């Protein structure tokens, strides 16, 4: 399935898989898609999430404590694909669980689960030769992060190596909510466009995007908005049985 943003801005929903449990993550993902999310990022819980703020750190910690593994995340992806053949599915992970599985095994298993793309938080383009080769062999889209601090030469390499979309980080820092969308974001997207446009690769903006106002602001200059910590925080305060409906309402309200 190619990753597509049908309406602008598209919505990418990040979920820490297995928080509160695997079955609920699947229900939440279904509710997000049915209420307008174009892409689900299934986060792989990791013991040392050094790019994440307190909300995702806590969710990741709960899921790790429950014993959620990369193979479990791929199983949720498989079920999600079976239930919603047209949605975009991205595996979002730190590198070590993938290295432990083996890059070749990981890419084959990920493709087999019906996933579209992969984003590895601590994988930079210069180190990605084997990763890119395995991704290509399995027809998976590698998605790289672009940062406000990345000089143009890096943005070019990132845009060239990415498929599906490029994930533009809205500001320097870790994941988590913020008051408003930083000025960094529009400047970064403008610089990235030079390199993504010729290849027709869309740009999603994430980090700190947490309400309809932010999504509207991002929609003025980017193709999609990534909602992460805001969803994870909503799930944290909701009862398991009510989390899917709460997330569905939240997503529906983002483009209102």
């Amino acid at each position, binding site marked *: 399935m190619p990753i597509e943003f049908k309406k602008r801005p598209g919505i990418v929903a990040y979920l820490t898989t297995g928080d509160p449990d695997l079955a609920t993550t699947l229900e939440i993902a279904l509710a997000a898609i049915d209420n307008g999310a174009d892409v689900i990022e299934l986060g792989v819980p990791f013991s040392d999430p050094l790019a994440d703020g307190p909300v995702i750190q806590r969710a990741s910690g709960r899921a*790790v404590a429950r014993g959620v593994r990369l193979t479990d995340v791929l199983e949720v992806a498989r079920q999600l694909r079976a239930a919603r053949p047209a949605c975009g599915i991205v595996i979002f992970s730190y590198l070590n669980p993938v290295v432990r599985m083996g890059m070749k095994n990981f890419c084959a298993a990920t493709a087999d689960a019906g996933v579209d793309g992969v984003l590895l938080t601590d994988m930079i383009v210069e180190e990605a030769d084997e990763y890119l080769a395995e991704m290509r062999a399995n027809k998976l889209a590698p998605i790289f992060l672009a940062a406000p601090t990345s000089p143009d030469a890096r943005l070019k390499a990132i845009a060239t190596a990415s498929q599906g979309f490029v994930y533009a980080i809205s500001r320097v820092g870790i994941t988590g909510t913020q008051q408003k969308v930083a000025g960094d974001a529009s400047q970064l997207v403008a610089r990235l466009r030079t390199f993504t446009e010729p290849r027709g690769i869309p740009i999603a903006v994430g980090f700190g995007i947490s309400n309809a106002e932010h999504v509207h602001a991002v929609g003025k200059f980017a193709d999609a908005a990534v909602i992460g910590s805001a969803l994870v925080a909503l799930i944290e305060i909701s009862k398991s049985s009510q989390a899917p409906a709460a997330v569905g309402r939240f997503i529906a309200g983002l483009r209102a």
Partner: protein
Amino acid sequence: MSMSANLESPVSFAVGARAGRFGVYGGRYVPETLMAALEELEQAYAEAQADPAFQAELDGLLHHYCGRPTPLYFAKRMSEQLGGAKIYLKREDLLHTGAHKINNALGQGMLARRMGKRRIIAETGAGQHGVATATVCALFGMECVIYMGEEDMRRQELNVFRMRLLGAEVRSVSTGSATLKDAINEAMRDWVTNVRDTYYILGSALGAHPYPTMVRNFQRVIGREARAQILEQEGRLPTAIVACVGGGSNAIGIFYDFIGDKDVRLVGVEAGGRGTALGDHAARFQKIDGGVPGVLQGTYSYVLQDDAGQIATTHSVSAGLDYASVGPEHAMLHDSGRAQYTSASDAEALAATSALARTEGILPALESAHAIAEAMKMAPRMAKTDILMVNLSGRGDKDMGILAREMNLQGAKG
């Protein structure tokens, strides 16, 4: 799903870029936000290395401020009692601030100043790197924030006081096992957030390129001095060199100038903790329930982890060795066989502390006591003509609270 086939060939994870590689290990695995800063650092470090004035100022400060060269001391009584090799101690414990850590903190502090960065952050385990960094920041008038695990703040309380006295802000980290690994996570989060004006003084030969190379180069002075000193005192090279290995900066510092001397055995000593099960030690090179290659905090090296790739908790009586991964250059030396790695348990380290204190009147840091423990095992099996050099990387004043509790010294509470 079984991963066992993959585990038998741990180096199958292919090498991408060549920069900062030690064999297949090392590299750069960080969030993209940090890449510009790492490239800037690499460039600035290369320029500083090529600048004779930088090296001259560093040498001057190492001599006049830190007290280099440190002595290479023949431990006569201990050698006689063990009845084997002649034991020499490289006395990094006599260095200003009490450990080898100042060699690197001073070098990086000068680099930060040269780069115009006014805000310094660092992580610390035992507190020695934190104290060294706080010292350098006081010397250069720079703002200093130190991240330290809550557990480490408790067990190395004296060093927390020292850092605060020196004007540093010490921020406690309560996530994970609240030790060194968690302090590095938090320091990296700070760096990602404040990357435009902040310099991260990493304390060991760990992390993303150029840190492992840069930290090793700042610590090389230990081995360079020791080589000249042993040639002067004995007229020949040592039979073996022993050093403790947490991240591995004191070990790589003393090993490096001897790597080409194939007859000199290099022995790294990891923390054996309270047992051999995963979670009870920090022996990354242990054969069973030890580490396998993986990526933690920016570098590819041996990592203690479970079979799903979650980082394992670790245990050691010494906060400075209590870490799930190890410097990538040690991973290379391990695989090539050029260095051998072994471990000493908590109990052996405590016994070695007491033995060195009573035979030589020298109180080693608990970290360095792991190297002493291995030397005590090796020396009796060696010839009287053999020379065993031990890197005494730090002094034990900071460990009084732990020693009092663990050894039930008279007058200690609880």
